C-alpha cells in the first residue's frame, strides 16, 4: 500500500483545478477552503486516483487558525493520501466549509463530531447537529480556548 507524494499529488490537482492548492510538502497537500468539494469529487471520480474510502476526517485547532485533515485511501489503486485545509483565520467568525457528505457517506458522523467538539460548520450536511454532547452545551470543548473548570456544565437558559 503506497503513499502519494504530496508534491506530485498537488501538481496533478492544480493541473485539473486552477489555483486550488495553497502549498504542499512531502506528505500532504493544502487545499483552498472554497475548492475542497471540487478537489474531493475529482479525487474520487478520476481513474488514476479513485480514492473511494474516506478513512478519517479530523480537525486541529492551531490557535490562529483551524486545520481539517482528510485521510483518503484508495482500494482500487492501493494508495493513501492526506489532504489538509486551513480555515477560520483570526478566530473572528464561525469557520465554515463545504461538507463532503454527498461524495462519501462515511463523512456524516465525523463531520458532525467536528462541529460538535470543534465548532466548524459544514454546509449542506443532512443534519448538522451535535452528535456527542447535548444540544444546549455551551461552547465547543476541543477548542484550545475552551476553559474546562470554570465552564458551567448546566446549559444556560439565555441561549434557548
Amino acid at each position, binding site marked *: 500500500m503506497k503513499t502519494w507524494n504530496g508534491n506530485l499529488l498537488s501538481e496533478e490537482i492544480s493541473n485539473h483545478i486552477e489555483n486550488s492548492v495553497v502549498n504542499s510538502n512531502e506528505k500532504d497537500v493544502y487545499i483552498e477552503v472554497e475548492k475542497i468539494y471540487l478537489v474531493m469529487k475529482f479525487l474520487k471520480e478520476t481513474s488514476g486516483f479513485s480514492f473511494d474510502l474516506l478513512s478519517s476526517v479530523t480537525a486541529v485547532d492551531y490557535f490562529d487558525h483551524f486545520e481539517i485533515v482528510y485521510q483518503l485511501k484508495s482500494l482500487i489503486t492501493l494508495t493513501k493520501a492526506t489532504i489538509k485545509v486551513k480555515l477560520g483565520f483570526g478566530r473572528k467568525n464561525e469557520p465554515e466549509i463545504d461538507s463532503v457528505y454527498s461524495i462519501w457517506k462515511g463523512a456524516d*458522523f465525523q463531520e458532525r463530531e467536528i462541529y460538535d467538539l470543534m465548532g466548524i460548520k459544514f454546509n449542506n450536511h443532512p443534519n448538522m447537529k451535535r452528535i456527542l454532547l447535548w444540544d444546549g452545551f455551551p461552547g465547543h470543548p476541543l477548542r484550545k480556548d475552551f476553559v474546562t473548570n470554570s465552564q458551567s456544565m448546566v446549559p444556560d437558559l439565555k441561549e434557548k
Partner: protein
Amino acid sequence: MSVKSEPITINLGPQHPSTHGVFRMRVTFDGETIIDLEPIFGYLHRGSEKLAEERTYTQIVTLTDRMDYVSSMLNNQGYILALEKLAHIDPKPRGVWLRMIASELQRIASHLVAIGFLIQDLGAWGTPLTYAMREREKILQMFEMLCGARITNSYLRPGGVFMDAPIQFWDALSEFTEHFPSKIEELEKLLSSNEIIFSRTKGIAVLTAEQAINASITGPILRSTGVNWDLRKSDPYDYYDQVDFNIPTHTAGDNYARYILRVQEMKESLSIVKQCVEKIEPGPVRPHHDETPNLVKPPVGDCYSAIEGSKGELGFYLVSDGSISPYRWHVRSSSLINLTLLKDMLVGTLFGDLFVTFGSIDINMGEVDR
C-alpha cells in the same frame, strides 16, 4: 374497510437489554415494520481526546484501554504504533511478537463477545453466550498473567511491551491453543447449521460493497460484502508480513455472513498466535530508558497510522509540538463509522431484525463515544 392507523415512535432508549451499552434509537414503526430510525449516542462521552492533551505519551496508554473496553490490547497496539511512527522508535522484536500474540488473543475474545451477544439477541436463552464467555474467561486469565488486569491491561509501552511474559503464560497459551478449535466446532455445531438462525439472519439488512466502501465501513462488515480488505494484509504493520494467514470473506453481506465471518476470523487469529509462538526468540522486551525514556518527546509534526481492530480500521492521528504531551490526539473510531448505514439497513425490516442487525454490526459504545 381500511383501518386508520398511524406510526408509533418508540425510544429504544439508552437503558435497554440489548443495545450493547448506552445507545439510544428513536424508531418509528408502522405496525411491525420500521419506517425511520435515528441513532442518538454520546451518553458515554468521557472527553478522552481533551484528556489526552494533558497527559504524557505513556499515560495515554491507560486512556486507550478504556476506549473499546472489549478489545483494549488492540487499542494499545494501534496507539503505540502511531507513537512509534511519530517518534521514530524502533521496537524490540520480542516485544513486537508478544504484543501480536496479545492482540490476536484479544481479537478472539472480542469476536466471542460479538457472537455470544448476537445469539443472545436472537433469543437463545444465554446458553451460547455462556459457552462463548467460558472461552473468553481463559483468554482474560492469560491477560491477568501477562499484565495483571483482565480488561484495563495497559500492557504496551512505546517500543514494545512493558514486561516479559511469565512462565505459566506459555503453558496456559499452549493449553488454550490445543482446546480452542474443538470449542469453536462445538459453537458452530450449536449455531451455524441452526435453521431458525438461518431464517432470522439470512438475507436481512444486506449491504453491497459500493455502499459499504462509500460509507467508509471497514472490518468484518466490509469483508462480509465481498471486499477482501484487511489492513493486516494490505498495509502490514508490526510483523504481520512474516506471518501467513488468509482473510475470510463472504459475498452475501447480510447478518449471517457477518456472523459466520467472525467465526472463521477466530480460527485465523488462532493460527496467527501459533505461528507467533514459534517465531518468538528471547531478547529484550523494551528499549532501555536511555534510548526511549519514559517521557517520550517526539519531534514536531503529525502522523496518522491505522491498524485492523476487531471492529474495523482503528486509526490514531497524533499531532506533536515537541512537548511531552500531544497537541492533538484523534481516534478514528471504527464503531462510530460502522453505524452510518444503520438507518439504511434497517428501514423496511421488522422489529425482530432491529437488534439482530445491530448485534451483527457489533459496535462498542466506549469506542463510539470515546
